[in-house]
């Protein structure tokens, strides 16, 4: 029964008000993508013990999707943020770094 704050409407909601949507920041592979890339997109999900980025929908609230950065082992929530971003924003990365100095992002931050 996690507690997450919806960044769209600002409500701090508990898990029963939310609908989980799996890993965040997947890059869609469409026609033209290789078999391997498409398979990875469809089926291969990160399942880290530690920092993870997830999709959540405020299903029994404003109805909007948002993203959450949290630790899957300790349940610490580093922050929630808009779903309309290809990578976690700088303030989320900074919040993670403060709590987990050794953590390294798995994506290459655009310039």
């Amino acid at each position, binding site marked *: 029964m*996690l*507690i997450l704050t919806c960044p769209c409407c600002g409500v701090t909601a*508990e898990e029963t008000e939310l609908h989980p*949507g799996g890993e965040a920041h997947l890059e869609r592979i*469409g026609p033209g993508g290789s078999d391997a890339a498409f398979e990875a997109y469809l089926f291969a999900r990160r399942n880290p013990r530690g920092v993870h980025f997830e999709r959540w929908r405020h299903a029994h609230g404003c*109805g*909007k999707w948002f993203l959450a950065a949290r630790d899957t082992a300790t349940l*610490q929530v580093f922050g929630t943020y808009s779903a309309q971003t290809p990578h976690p924003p700088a303030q989320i990365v900074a919040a993670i770094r403060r709590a987990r100095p050794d953590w390294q992002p798995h994506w290459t931050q655009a310039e």
Partner: protein
Amino acid sequence: MTHTPSFRLARGGRLIDRARQIPFRFDGRHLRGLQGDTLASALLANGQMMMGRSFKYHRPRGPLASGAEEPNALFGLGQGGRFEPNQRATTTALLSGMVMQSQNCWPSLDADIGAVNGWLSPMFPAGFYYKTFIHPRAFWKHLFEPVIRHSAGLGRAPSDPDPDRYEQAYAHTETVVVGGGIAGLTAAREAARAGGRVLVLEQGPVWGGRTPVDHRDGQARIEALLADLGARPNVTLRRNCMATGLYDHGYLLAREALADHDPDQGIPRQRLWRIRARQVVTATGALERPLSFAMNDVPGVMLASAVRDFILDYGVAPGRRLVVVTNNDDAYRTALIAQEAGLEVAAIIDARPRAGGDLAQAARAANIPVLTGTGIARVRGGRHVEGVIHCDQSGEGRPTGAIDCDVVAMSGGWSPVVHLYSHCGGKLIWDEAEAMFRPDPARPPLGADGQGNVTATGAANGDLRCAGDLERAEDATMPVWCMPQNAPYKLRSKMWLDFQNDVKVSDVQLAAREGYASVEHTKRYTTLGMATDQGKLSNINGLAVLSEALSQPIPQTGTTTFRPPYTPLTLATIAADARGDAFQPLRRTPIHDWHARNGAAWEPVGQWRRPYSYPRAGEDRHAAVNREILAVRKGVGTLDASTLGKIVVRGPDAGRFLDMLYTNMMSTLPVGKCRYGLMCSENGFLMDDGVVARLTEDSWLCHTTTGGAERIHGHMEDWLQCEWWDWQVYTANLTEQYAQIAVAGPKARALLERLPGSIDLSQQALPFMQWAEGEVAGIPARIYRISFSGELSYEIAVPAGRGLDLWERLHEAGHDMGITPYGTEAMHVMRAEKGFIMIGDETDGTIIPQDLGLGWAISKKKADYIGKRAQSRSFMTDRARWQLVGLESLDGRVIPDGAYAVDAGSNANGQRKMQGRVTSSYHSPTLDRPIAMALVRHGPERMGQVLDFPLPSGEVMQGRICDPVFYDREGGRLNG
């Protein structure tokens, strides 16, 4: 016989009211207890020590404890729908007229046939079931399993619905303190002083925990704290409220007993509190551990703390002559209290070489014999303790003497109750001095902010002397895991670790010898700490024995995982009001009441109720279906289609978005026209279908299946919000805003033309797959010329509030035409006659449109749509995929839905190979013969071939492959 039970003491009993006698029935006997008694204290007062039989060997058992950790004294309580198994006699308050039944015995507690298991106990070692019931294979199903199932399970389930009411409530608080003992109340005072709301939960009916029993000034100290807390407006005190589980981010579940076993109060029986707290304080105290000596399960062997609880709380003597056996100073209290209450204390057997603490000195001063360095070799007696034989603790059990007694009070030290702390990730550390695990303050459960949100306090934190006089001299507890230390197998095989599941020291040692090094594996192999015990009594003793057997320190062995609930929750409490009609919302269409008045047989479709058919007098559901179909085919019928999903998609990028969502092209659909569309998941599988109408230049109305409306709307929003967030599109689910009525049949147009209206319904003005807007019978309406029945059909959408009006106007106008309401089953059969697929019949989450001959509805021109990439994967393009065909039954009977077509040969598991299956199968009243649709390997290329469908009865039915369109292949009727 007098009414004063013989084991009730003349004085004492702080929780009972001697003026109020309470009659009750136990296994058919009429007995009396006192107001304030628990079932256990009332039975003990009546001299009834034996209260149950153990689970595996059916050994006679008495109460071991006085609280929630009791493993033996479990009863079935109540009658009929109020019967409840496994109620702890030690925590259940006695109420007038209570009826209780002992468990695990047949025909009675005294003469139990299953006790033969005990004589055979050498044949039932750890893992007995796993080892024995393997061969011969055939014996499992017919012999072993029925016998084991018959004797398996603790207690029996009630057979009637629970008539009581249960409720749930929410609480949000700064601090919740679990435990109303001295530590909990003190912590609550601290939290209350700091401000913020404080909620204090006490599992039992009285405050104070052990303090009033164990300390002379205890009651006064508790009352002072309660007075302080009671005066604070920010503190809520709640008794009879058991915290059963602690979950993520400070979410705590607690069950409050309001009217347990007392249905006449007219209030809910229990209330489940769903509490969210910023800080949780566990002040849950500690549980006393049993000692492992031979025959430590004979009725009359009890925890030392329980013996003094029964004496002081209930004025009940568990026996006349007491022996205390201990490895610590605390148990000396029991000897002193028992002697003061008038019991004879025959001896204190102390495993430690020396006992020089203040309590030991007091015992000696009271002329109680103290035998140090001594252990119990074995207990004498079968159904009741008759005495003990003692020995040197350091030896192998050679008797050093015998003492007659009828109660043995044992204490193996104390273990903090760490369950809640552990439930959501708090870690434990091993405390060498007290031989116990206690919460590690450095590794608590964490809140959302990453900071610890649970703290343990008092005995629950390992501070066993938190209520005591710290000045008092006390000798250290000496770990004793086996008494005597070098006991031979004969003794070890009679030392119980888990009294409920009959796990003994020898079982755990055997598990270790057989290679079970992990404590979690050992638990499952031996059943140690399973069922309601959940590690309360057996945990530390069991893992200490395992550690010794593995020659490793206890912390290295670790504990098993503590899982909620701490004590069982009834399912009724978890469900509360969400049962019966309130289980889930019922969705009714605007025409629902008309259906009900006209005899609809209902079919649940998701949360909707839809008419399956409208049986008339003398008709069953199926006869009604046939009549309804023929009426539509020959005249005109109406279907309430209001449940169909109706989602408006609008915006500059709506066409582009729908082109991604559907397999076919929607952006090119002209305003005023309709198009049937298919929606696939990103996996390529068909997930929904329906007709899309283009309403305006920038808006489309998407019809979905009844069950799919919310899901498809969510699917649209997911893609819009998370993938194409820069596209300008809005969606709105208008399903409930419109009533929709299908008017179908050759006379549909003639019927509608009888109603006043502004819409030209002619074939030229409104041909198939077009829509028009205007008025019908004075009601604003949109008419779609679409058909799921294969007949001339108009679907009329009107504002929901006008739906019933339109339906009734149609039926008035069509009365002389024989207008017939038809239900979902007639709709299903008619669509099958036409070879139209049905989501959920022809699809099951593994079917792509190409399997169903729907290639015509997949755009070849589009660069992309959801599912397109998946549909080019090798196994999606495999020509051997099963494809949709029709089936004609060879013998005129309906082939069962779901029947499989067998192929030649067998697979690697020796099973017949399959080549297809039936997806829809009906008797067609239109054609007066069976029709079916099936998915068959290479099906469309095999017209005319006959397939075999073996049935579970062994009979084989045959079907010939044919075209799936059985009726009006040219489409003249729906275009008419």
